[in-house]
């Protein structure tokens, strides 16, 4: 019974990670690529870690080996590290790309540029 839960988590993980890496090739410029790739891969990795935690807790329940408790806790720590650092890195890339002069493709309104211009004047 618990295998089907793990299969469902792994299916969501594979779907969203592949969608994230396909989004790198289907979007026109840096900002939309960042939007697709970062959100999809972060959401997919949450479900990869959930599958591993479910598997480890089930093995702990069956065998009683404390190695599996360690595996569950450490993969949860990896998830927390990824969730804290991934949005900050994406924000830094987007800000650096805009400051170094790469404009959004096919954009009509660039609100960040207007805000920067208003501050300078």
């Amino acid at each position, binding site marked *: 019974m618990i295998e089907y839960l*793990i*299969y469902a988590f*792994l299916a969501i*993980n*594979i779907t969203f*990670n*592949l969608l*994230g*890496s*396909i989004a*790198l*090739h289907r979007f026109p410029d*840096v900002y939309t*690529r*960042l939007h697709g*790739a*970062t959100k999809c*891969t*972060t959401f*997919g*990795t949450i479900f*990869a*870690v959930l*599958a*591993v935690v479910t*598997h*480890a807790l089930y093995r702990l329940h069956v065998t009683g080996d404390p*190695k599996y408790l*360690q*595996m569950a806790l*450490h*993969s949860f*720590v*990896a998830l927390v*590290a*990824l969730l804290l*650092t*991934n949005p*900050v*890195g*994406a924000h*830094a*890339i987007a*800000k*650096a*790309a805009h*400051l*170094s002069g*790469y404009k959004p493709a096919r954009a009509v309104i660039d609100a960040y540029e207007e805000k920067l211009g208003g501050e300078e004047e």
Partner: protein
Amino acid sequence: MIEPVFFYAALIISIGAFLAILRILLGPTVPDRVVGVDTLNTLVVAGMVLLGAAYDRTIYIDIAIVYALLSYIGTLIVARYLQGGLK
């Protein structure tokens, strides 16, 4: 004991990592390549956690934690370099 489901999931995730490497090689501008590297880092962390479950080794998951933190520092440094130093 090898759990085959986790191993196949990690194999399919490595296809996504190959697509990210393709974006790093093809990317027309420098920030495109940085976005590819960031995606590759996240996919490597996911694949390493899955391989840790597949081969029943907790040490792989510890390496995934360290890799996530170090790749974050690398992304921040490259972004600082792109926007022209400390402003």
